[in-house]
Each structure stands twice: as structure tokens, then as C-alpha cells.
């Protein structure tokens, strides 16, 4: 077929407008990530083309002007970011150039180029967001690109259906899934984006309440918990134990180094809950479990302070199984080492608090009444809950307890434990998460980073370590106004929130729960699908237990099946051949082996006379074949299949073709 060379075919105004629409569609998710000024630059080219096209005006831009615009944009991007390197600057530059490319697209090849580029440009969206909604949008965008590509290359583009494009996309989906599941994966990423570390709420292995002036609440999932038992724990029991901090140097709380010398003594009693935790990567070794974790599957370890620790750092999402008993008793008896650790206070600091604590303790008489006294004190006195406390570097407890009287959970927990220790009661700080949102769709609790919390534990003879949450004693009226709504909603500070509240959620809640459920599935099964999961899948398919030659055999079979299938598809294009054609084809094959090939446009007569001219010795064999073939093919159009002459002729042709000796 004669087709005009691509470089001679011009791009029509309509096609350019459809390109502009594709660009807008592709760039939209990226624009959300770009600064607003760059968005304006990126929008310029497609909108210019669309407007000029709508007005039936020429879209031509002077080449030199275009060059100057491109250079200016590049300089601007460099100015804005100070570099071309890195994710943001690189993407900004590419996106700007991609949109400007439209202005210099005149040739037909530019059309295909821009559309092909669009696939790659869209992939850049995944550098910014990997959330679930991108997936349907990607399908939409890809369908549009394929549609425009097919339409632009079709012979008659006036009425071109959507269906072939959608069909192509859908047909490619199983292949994509197959490659996704089985294409060999590297253990780590090939390259990493230089990321920025942000500080915010969450749990770290130390706690220095005094030197934080602003705490950001991060609205990202920390972990999800799915109970395998039917009963759910009480809302007031939703304390997710992370770390126990026992060593205090006056500023910072840490884990005690002597802790490992203490033997574990946890007595399970009361109701036991079993559940799976799906933990987001923390890059730390500790794990979280409902207070009090009593047993744990897998290689992870339950420590003597009833915290969980993994054998390695959690660099990727993991899933583990724990059982917890809220009424379990930790350390019914306290070893001397443990007692010593949990009474230790730095010398010569916070003297005022120490004095105050001893006075109050002697008034109260027992540990329990002293704790009640302290909670009462927090509740009655003007203590405030705020995320923007003043900095209290030295004498933090004194400063907090007597002067500022405002802070967040760390201040309360820290001071509370200090008071108890000063009064001679073993006490320690526990950090972790508190509360959680129940997802009715997925049937799990979602615990977010902003649910991070710190509380206190003190030791009583026969009861072991008892949890007390001093932050919850703050009077609701004294919670920072900006936080109040949030706090009321989550209710984790105040145990008054009834369980029934969970059930009466509106459709908006329901939608957001459904969304989190879908997102969690997406996270778990798509984004976190790594080499290990792949190996697990192969293991599950029992491929490893098979001998190697079995596997090779299966692979070979699959390959052959695919080849056979393709071959069938290709050969079916010749439609099913009848007997005459088969016999003729057999002759052609025989001749091709001898080095004479029929051109596609050659008829039998022309071909055979050429062959006989080249090889006169074959005339006797070939002439009858040609004669019979022409008779059967061309002589009578309405040859009855039962006609005797026809059958004889066909039989002869078949015989001659089969026993052709050259």
C-alpha cells in the first residue's frame, strides 16, 4: 500500500484540539502537585490551542517566539526551584515542555509522539501520589489516549466508536495483572526519590516533652487492627501499647537499659482478644498491641514490660497476629532491679514538685488514693490541653505543674510519673496510640498517627502495673479550642463517649470508611506487593515443591500454547481453506522448498509458467496440476460438490499434489 510519508502529512485543527484535551486530562493530576504559577504556564498551550481552534483562527506560533518562550519557562523553573535536579523541579520542567510541544506540533508524527509521551507523563503522577483514586483516573486517561490515537490513525475518522479503544484496554488488563504478579521483582527499589522528612505526631523511642513548642497532628494511618474474635474491646480500653519509658534524666524519657535483665511475668486473665495488626512502616523495631498483649505469633518477642519487639526494623508494611487481655496482670511482684529503675529520679531537679508530692502522699496515705488525688488536682485546677505549649527546658515538671499548667499528653504523663516516683511509688511512662476509628465496611480499627498518646503506669502490690491516663483528667472546657471539636469527635481523652456512637454514622462517614477500606486493600495488595509477597505467591502455588524440570516443562508448555494460539490467529486470517486451496498450497510449499516462491500478487498461471521456464524438467509434473487447479477454481463457478467430474478432478489434483516429485 502506498501511504504518504509521515513527514508530509499535516495535522488538522481538529486533531490538535483533541491533543489539547488529552493534555489537559493527563496534566490535571500533576497540576494539583505543581505550584499555582507553573499550573498557569502548563495550562497556557492547550487552552490557547482550544480557544484559537474554537474561533477558527490559525494556531501558528512563530518559531523564534516559541524558542524564547521555552527558554524563559526553563529559566523560570530553574529560578523557582534553584535546580533542575530532584523530583519537583524535574517534573515541572518536563511537564512545561510537554505542554509547549503542542504549539510546535504541525506534522502528523507529532500527533503520535505527543500521545505516546502522554502515557509516560501520566506515569509521573505516581511520583507524587499512589493513592487509590489515581487508578480509575488512569484507566480513563489511557482509554482517551488510545481512543484519540486510534481515531487519528483511522482511515475514516468521522464516526469512530469508543468500543475498540475500551476493548484494547480491557484486553490488556489481564496481561497487566499477570505481569504484575509474575514479573521478577527486585528486592528494593531501583532508585529512590530524595524524600523530605517531616516531624509530627507519632511515636519515637524517646520523649522530651519540655522542648516541643508545636506538635503537628498527622492524619495518616499508623496501623489497622482487625479482630478475629467477635467481641470488640470497650472503647475505653483502646490503648495500643508501644513502648515503656522508664529512665528519666530530667529532660528525656528513654527505655531503660537494665530492662533486659528482668524476667517476664505476665498473668493472663479475663477476656482475651485476638487480632491482626497491619502496621505501616516505622523504620523502628517496636510493634503495637492492645494493652495488655499476652502472646504473639511469628518471630517477634514479647518483652517483660509487655511491649512487642520485631527482630528487624519495620521498613515495609507488615502484618502480625497478637492476642491481648485487658485485665492481665503485669509483674505481680516487682524485682528489686525493676523497683529501682522505676523509682529513679535525677538529683537536684524539680525540687518543688518532689516536696509537693511527698506532702500530698502523706496526706493521702495509699498509692491509689494518691493517684486519685492527683487526677482530681488536674481536673480541678486550671490545667489546659494544648498542642502549642510553651517551651520548658529546665525544671520541666515544676514549670508545668505550678506555672504554665498547659501541655499535651507527654507533659501530663511525664509529670504524673515524676510525682508518683517522688512519692516512692514505682511508675513509668507508656507511649503508643489511643482510640481508633472503627471501619464498619472493612470491620477493622484504623489508628492514625495523630492518635499517638502517652500515659502512665504505676505499680501496686498484687495488681501489678496499673494504667492511668492523666491527660484524660483535664476538664473538657480547658481543651484548646482548635482541638476541641477534634477531641469531642474522637473522644479518646474522655472516656464518656458511648460505644453506640460508632453505629450511628452518616452516609458520609460510611463513604469515607469505604474509601479507607479500598485504600487499605490497594496499599496491601498493590503498592506493597514486593519480592517477598511474590515468593509467597509462588510458594502458595506450590511451584517450589515441584522439581525444576516440572517447572521448566510448565513454562515451555505455556510458551508453546501462546505461540500456537497466535499462529492459529494469524492463519485464521486466510479463512478456512477448502480442499483445492490446500492441495495448491501443498504444491506451493514443495516449490518453495526448491527455492521458487510465489509472489502474493502472482496468479497460478503466471507463477507456473515462470517456474517451468526456469525449470523445464518439471513441466510434466506441474502442467496437470495447473490444469486441474484452474478447472476447479475458475472454470465453473457453480460446480456442484457432488459432480462426478469435479470429484475426479479434485482427487487427481490432491494425488498429484501429494506425490509431487521434483
Amino acid at each position, binding site marked *: 500500500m502506498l*501511504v504518504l510519508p509521515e513527514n508530509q502529512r499535516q495535522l488538522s485543527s481538529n486533531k490538535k484540539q483533541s491533543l489539547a484535551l488529552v493534555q489537559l486530562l493527563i496534566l490535571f493530576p500533576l497540576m494539583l502537585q505543581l505550584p499555582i504559577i507553573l499550573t498557569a504556564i502548563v495550562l497556557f498551550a492547550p487552552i490557547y490551542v482550544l480557544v484559537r481552534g474554537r474561533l477558527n483562527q490559525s494556531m501558528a506560533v512563530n518559531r523564534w517566539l516559541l524558542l524564547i518562550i521555552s527558554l524563559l519557562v526553563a529559566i523560570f523553573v530553574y529560578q523557582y526551584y534553584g535546580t533542575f535536579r530532584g523530583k519537583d523541579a524535574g517534573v515541572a520542567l518536563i511537564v512545561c515542555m510537554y505542554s509547549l510541544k503542542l504549539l510546535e506540533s504541525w506534522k502528523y508524527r507529532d500527533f503520535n509522539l505527543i500521545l505516546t509521551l502522554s502515557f509516560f507523563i501520566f506515569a509521573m503522577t505516581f511520583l507524587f501520589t499512589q493513592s487509590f483514586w489515581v487508578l480509575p483516573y488512569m484507566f480513563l486517561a489511557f482509554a482517551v489516549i488510545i481512543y484519540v490515537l486510534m481515531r487519528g490513525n483511522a482511515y475514516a475518522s468521522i464516526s469512530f466508536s469508543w468500543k475498540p479503544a475500551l476493548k484494547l484496554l480491557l484486553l490488556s488488563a489481564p496481561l497487566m495483572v499477570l505481569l504484575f504478579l509474575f514479573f521478577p521483582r527486585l528486592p528494593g527499589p531501583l532508585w529512590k526519590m530524595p524524600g523530605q522528612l517531616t516531624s509530627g505526631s507519632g511515636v519515637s523511642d524517646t520523649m522530651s516533652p519540655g522542648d516541643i513548642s508545636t506538635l503537628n497532628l498527622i492524619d495518616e494511618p499508623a496501623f489497622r487492627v482487625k479482630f478475629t474474635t467477635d467481641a470488640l474491646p470497650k472503647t475505653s480500653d483502646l490503648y495500643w501499647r508501644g513502648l515503656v519509658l522508664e529512665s528519666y534524666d530530667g529532660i528525656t524519657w528513654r527505655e531503660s537499659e537494665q530492662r533486659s535483665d528482668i524476667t517476664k511475668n505476665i498473668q493472663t486473665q479475663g477476656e482475651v482478644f485476638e487480632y491482626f495488626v497491619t502496621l505501616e512502616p516505622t523504620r523502628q523495631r517496636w510493634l503495637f498491641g492492645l494493652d495488655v498483649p499476652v502472646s504473639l505469633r511469628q518471630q517477634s518477642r514479647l518483652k517483660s514490660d509487655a511491649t512487642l519487639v520485631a527482630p528487624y526494623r519495620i521498613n515495609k508494611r507488615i502484618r502480625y497476629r497478637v492476642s491481648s487481655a485487658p485485665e492481665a496482670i503485669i509483674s505481680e511482684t516487682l524485682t528489686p532491679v525493676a523497683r529501682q529503675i522505676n523509682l529513679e529520679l535525677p538529683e537536684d531537679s524539680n525540687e518543688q514538685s518532689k516536696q509537693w508530692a511527698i506532702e500530698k502522699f502523706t496526706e493521702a496515705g495509699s498509692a491509689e488514693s494518691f493517684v486519685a488525688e492527683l487526677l482530681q488536682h488536674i481536673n480541678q485546677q486550671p490545667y489546659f490541653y494544648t498542642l502549642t505549649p510553651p517551651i520548658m527546658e529546665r525544671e520541666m515538671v515544676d514549670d508545668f505543674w505550678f506555672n504554665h499548667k498547659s501541655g499535651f499528653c507527654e507533659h501530663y504523663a511525664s509529670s504524673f510519673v515524676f510525682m508518683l516516683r517522688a512519692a516512692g511509688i514505682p511508675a513509668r511512662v507508656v507511649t503508643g496510640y489511643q482510640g481508633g476509628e472503627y471501619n464498619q465496611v472493612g470491620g477493622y480499627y484504623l489508628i492514625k498517627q495523630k492518635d499517638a498518646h502517652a500515659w502512665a503506669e504505676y505499680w501496686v502490690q498484687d495488681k501489678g502495673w496499673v494504667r492511668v491516663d492523666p491527660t484524660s483528667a483535664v476538664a473538657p472546657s480547658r481543651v484548646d479550642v482548635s482541638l476541641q471539636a477534634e477531641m469531642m469527635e474522637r473522644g479518646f481523652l474522655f472516656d464518656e463517649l458511648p460505644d453506640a456512637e460508632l453505629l450511628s454514622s452518616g452516609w458520609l462517614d460510611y463513604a469515607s470508611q469505604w474509601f479507607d477500606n479500598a485504600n487499605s486493600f490497594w496499599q496491601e495488595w498493590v503498592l506493597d506487593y514486593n519480592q517477598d509477597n511474590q515468593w509467597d505467591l509462588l510458594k502458595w502455588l506450590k511451584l517450589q515443591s515441584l522439581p525444576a524440570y516440572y517447572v521448566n516443562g510448565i513454562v515451555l508448555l505455556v510458551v508453546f500454547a501462546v505461540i500456537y494460539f497466535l499462529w492459529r490467529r494469524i492463519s485464521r486470517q486466510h479463512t478456512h481453506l477448502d480442499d483445492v486451496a490446500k492441495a495448491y498450497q501443498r504444491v506451493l510449499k514443495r516449490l518453495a522448498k526448491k527455492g521458487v516462491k510465489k509472489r*502474493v500478487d502472482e496468479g497460478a498461471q503466471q507463477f507456473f509458467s515462470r517456474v517451468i521456464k526456469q525449470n523445464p524438467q518439471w513441466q510434466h509434473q506441474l502442467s496437470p496440476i495447473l490444469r486441474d487447479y484452474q478447472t476447479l477454481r*475458475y472454470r465453473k*463457478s457453480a460446480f456442484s460438490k457432488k459432480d462426478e467430474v469435479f470429484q475426479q478432478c479434485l482427487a487427481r489434483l490432491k494425488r498429484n499434489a501429494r506425490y509431487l516429485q521434483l
Partner: protein
Amino acid sequence: MQQRIDAIKQTLNNIVLGKESQVEMAIVCLLAKGHLLIEDLPGMGKTTLAHAISRVFGLEFQRIQFTSDLLPADITGTAIFDRNQQAFSFHPGPIFSQVILADEINRATPKTQSALLEAMEEHQVTIEGETRKLPSPFFVIATQNPAHQIGTYPLPESQLDRFLVRLSLGYPHPEFEKSLLLSGEKRAMANSAKPQLTSEQLIEMQYQVEQINVSESIVDYLLKLVIETRRSPDLVHGLSPRAGLAITQAAKAYAWLQQRDFVIPEDVQHVFVSVVGHRLQASGQSQLNGDDVAEAILQNTAVPL
């Protein structure tokens, strides 16, 4: 029958030297009851060939020289008032003849050109409300100069479609040109050529051509070719169903010439470019003409097994 045709071929080749294939196609056109268009520069022997054909086939012959002031009535004839009979009597024009040589057809205005239309397609003319049959066989041989010459009105597509075959003679081979120059003008020879056939015999031949068998396989091949012209981006439009019929007709005639009673793909290939070339209009910027595209399509379309 075929021997007579061979004799005719021989005679014609003696008159128009070195143009065997064109002569053969002209005969095919006549046998297929089609009209012939010969397109070339002035002085290439168009008229001579046309003249010789009509003589050799023993047909009644009229020549119309087309000019820009030729009127339709000059072709079809008019009714003139006869004083003696006190009535209009019809004076038939040159079109009432078995062979019309329409010389330099594209020099006439479109109005006059279209007067030929009805005659060519329906073998009848309508003058002043009265339809008159044309003699049989009826055969128009038109010659034309290439369209880019000054003072030409290109034939409308509708009229081009009515010519079965378009031939282009081209410059003669130097060898033949030499013998032409040595022996002098051939026009006289054409005029003195003896008729080799009666018109009854020609009609009989045309009937035999009709009877040639076209099998389903050939029709499939032909359809493939036609559809390919409709899909080609190099053409403004594809072939009409009439063009498909025309190819079949010509292929049959060619098969008959080869003394076969059935059409084979080679017959179709042989006549394809001549029959189709003038019906195709190459699009836009490509430097191709209809013949080139037709040739390319032929080369790229597989013959069904």
C-alpha cells in the same frame, strides 16, 4: 473466430507500429462493448489507431472533430422544416453510426461533452422529446490531449467513468520510429485497410465474451482490489460498482482473446490498470496519478489461493 482476431491484430500492428499491448487493449475494449479513450499528446497516432480499428472491424464510421464551439445538436442531429412536406424532418447527426471517433474530446465545452453521455451509456439519444435508438454495435473512440494543455476542458468524472478503457500510446520505440520515418505516413494505410469482420460476427464475438465464466474466486479477488482502492489514503475516492463491472467485462474479453472460457486472476491483472487508472483520482500532495496507485494496489493485493 480467434484467427480472425489475430489477423485484425496483425493489421493494426502494421499500421500502429510497436504498440501491441495498446492494440490488444483496444480490441478487448471493443469486445467488452466498452468505449475507448485514448489520451496522449498531439501527433502520437491516436487518430490513426482509432481510424484503423473502425476500418478493420468493418464498421460504419463517423468522425467528429471536437472544438470549443461545437454544439450538442452538431453531434445528435436536428429536425429541419421540410418545405415540400410541410413538416419537420429529422436529420440525424454523426452520432448515428456504429463507430464514433470523437477527436480531441476535451476541446469541446462540457455541455457538448455531456451530449455524448446519454448516447454512450444508453445507446440512444433523445432529440426534441423523441428517443432514437443508435445502431448496434455502438462504439465511441475518443481521443484527448493531456488536461494541462491550453484550451482543454477536462472531462467530468462522470464521463470518464463511462469509458471502459483508457489508453496512452506514448512515444514509439526508436526502432519503430525509424521505420515509420522511412515508410512515410500510415494514415493512408489506415484508410485503405480492408474490413476483416462483419458487424454480425462482431456481435457474435461479443456474445461469446458474455458467456465467459467468472468464478467466485475471481470475484473475491476483484472485490479485494476494489475495496483496497476505497481504503487507500492516496485516493480521493475508491472505485464505483460500475468500475467493478467494467473490470469483469474487460477481463472476460481478455480471457476470450486468450482462448479460454474462464477468467483467471492474470486476466484481471492484465486489464486492471487500463480500466481503472482514469477512474481514480490521486489525492493532494502525492505526486502519483491514478495508474501508479492502481499498479501499487495490484502489487500488494494477494491472489486468493
